[in-house]
């Protein structure tokens, strides 16, 4: 076949170009009405994308312009205060760091453990596995304020009775973002081809040895992406913390899991609510810091996903 018609020869190329131009000449002869309609439709679609992105850039640009006077080192070195000139994000940053440290401690083992169980151990057809799957998808869409009430009724008070502490905030936020970790980690584990597992099992490895030495290492980039996405959601989350009695005008830095709750989005929320314009400026500056942090985290997650994505 390739002897008679080799597409690389010059004659074949001339023949193909000729055939293509004839075909295009016949088929591209679209009615003018259709051409106009098509172009209009495409422009409307592009306009939709442009409006969404323009809204985002407007938000970011406005925050930068409004917050510019307070975007300096004082923002990071001053504690919160009821006087706008003395107020800064220092204690809020400490609060966010403490909360996130414990969120990571909770979501990494539990999220990955649950994903491994659902993908590698539970039988796919079982009713239970399907119920757990629907349950996790549903939990991912429960409003965050409801997690806040769960934290108030079950963790701060009630059975766990941890009080309004950093630990309470961490557990509540961990529950909120666990579905994200589980869903993304499952996808990463699922994309490891079965032949890797079969090879390992055939060599006499146990199921756990297969998971730990073959499946998990191959799935690490995907799992890391999920964890970073979950953390960036948790860092920007405010509504969950409102019912947890968050002390927004805390004047000392949180120093451990038993400290009172404060966090960047909460402090920003309180600044927005203040009537004075100075606090609005401060709030805009805080929003810029928060957005830069979240965009950096999300970009890193996207980079990880694209850089280490394995095609088997």
């Amino acid at each position, binding site marked *: 076949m390739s002897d008679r018609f080799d597409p690389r020869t010059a004659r074949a190329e001339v023949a193909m170009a000729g055939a293509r131009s004839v075909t295009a000449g016949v088929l591209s002869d679209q009615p003018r009405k*259709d051409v106009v*309609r*098509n172009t209009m*439709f*495409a422009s409307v*679609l592009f*306009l*939709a*994308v442009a409006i*969404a*992105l323009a*809204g*985002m850039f407007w*938000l970011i640009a*406005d*925050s930068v312009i409004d917050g510019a006077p307070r975007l300096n080192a004082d923002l990071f070195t001053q504690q919160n205060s009821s006087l706008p000139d003395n107020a800064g994000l220092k204690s809020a940053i400490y609060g966010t760091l403490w909360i996130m440290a414990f969120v990571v401690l909770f979501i990494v083992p539990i999220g*990955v*453990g*649950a994903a491994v*169980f*659902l993908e590698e*151990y*539970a039988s796919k057809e079982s009713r239970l596995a399907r119920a*757990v799957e*629907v*349950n996790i*998808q*549903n*939990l991912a*869409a429960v*409003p965050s*304020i*409801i*997690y806040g*009430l*769960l934290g*108030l*009724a079950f963790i701060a008070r009630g059975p766990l009775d941890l009080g*309004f502490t950093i630990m309470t905030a961490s557990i509540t936020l961990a*529950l909120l973002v*666990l579905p994200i970790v589980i869903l993304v980690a499952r996808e990463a584990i699922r994309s490891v081809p079965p032949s890797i597992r079969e090879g390992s099992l055939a060599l006499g490895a*146990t199921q*756990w040895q297969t998971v730990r030495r073959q499946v998990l290492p191959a799935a690490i980039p995907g799992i890391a992406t999920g964890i970073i996405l979950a953390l960036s959601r948790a*860092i*920007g*989350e*405010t*509504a969950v913390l*409102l*019912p*947890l009695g968050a002390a927004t005008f805390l004047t000392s830095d949180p120093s451990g899991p038993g400290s009172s709750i404060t966090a960047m*989005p909460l402090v*920003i929320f309180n600044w*927005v609510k203040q009537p004075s314009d100075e606090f*609005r400026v401060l*709030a805009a500056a805080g*929003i810029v810091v*928060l957005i830069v942090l*979240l965009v950096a985290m*999300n970009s890193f997650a996207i980079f990880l996903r694209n850089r280490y994505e394995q095609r088997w």
Partner: protein
Amino acid sequence: MQASDIAASGPAALTKPRLEAASPRYGERVIYYLLAGCAAISVITTTAIVISLLLPSVDFFGEVSPGDFFFGTDWGPTFEPPAFGVLPIVVGTLSVTFWSLLFAIPIGLGAAIYLSEYASRRARRVIKPALEVLAGIPTVALGFFGLVVLTPALQSIWPGFLGGEPAIFNALAGGLAIGLLIVPIIASVSDDAMSAVPGGLREGAYALGATKAKVATKVVFPAALSGIVASIILASSRAIGETMIVLLAAGNTPNLTFNPLESIQAMTAFIATTATGDIATGSITYKTVFAVALLLFAMTLVMNLLSIRLVRKYREVYE
């Protein structure tokens, strides 16, 4: 096994080797139960949410009749005398959700059709991450944007013949800010659904002489309809449950109106302002918060289950 054992057990044992592990592998069992425990946490979370909402709500309905709660038009649980008609805040939530969808459905679907049918690979590589950044903007920033930017902008361009002017807090600015939040949800879930439509359907339509716009609207769009509807339901559920934006931009005054220019109170805003850390457990205010939360949870639960089912449907058809 020693060689002598094999010899002693005879040829039958050789042809039927034992496949059981040499040791009982207790470690593997322990690991199995640990992992199952991790998965069980999601079930425990759901159970805890339902219990924590249900118990105070049952108490609440012992004190306030369900009829007064669901059909009453006066909302002021902390007033004297208190009023427990939930309709004003339900209408507040629905009004904000309506305006957000009115903005987000055309924009989100337009973006989805563009991404799946028109965008070059390079355009996709830029637009998809940009939409993901938009999805990651913290809600407190969107609330600030609604209050400080959108409302003044609306006030300055508001055409007089429509009557009135947007108030400092208004449902429209809140709705638009939420719209910005849910555009990426509609765009990405609908894009996934349309990209999953097999190429053969498109090629068939092209072969019959359809234009690109016809293929997109008459073939791909209907074929991906269940996924598109799922994305809209998911986005509505997110809009109904959104707290910070309505709290900052849409106001906190219970108001039985669909007028987008007035200040309203959404269910989430009521919960967030009332359920602060110093609320006394067992008080009627505390129970009211949980009754409203139960209603909110029920509304979003129905929508989420519907959307999960629809997504599964298109997956079953095309994947």
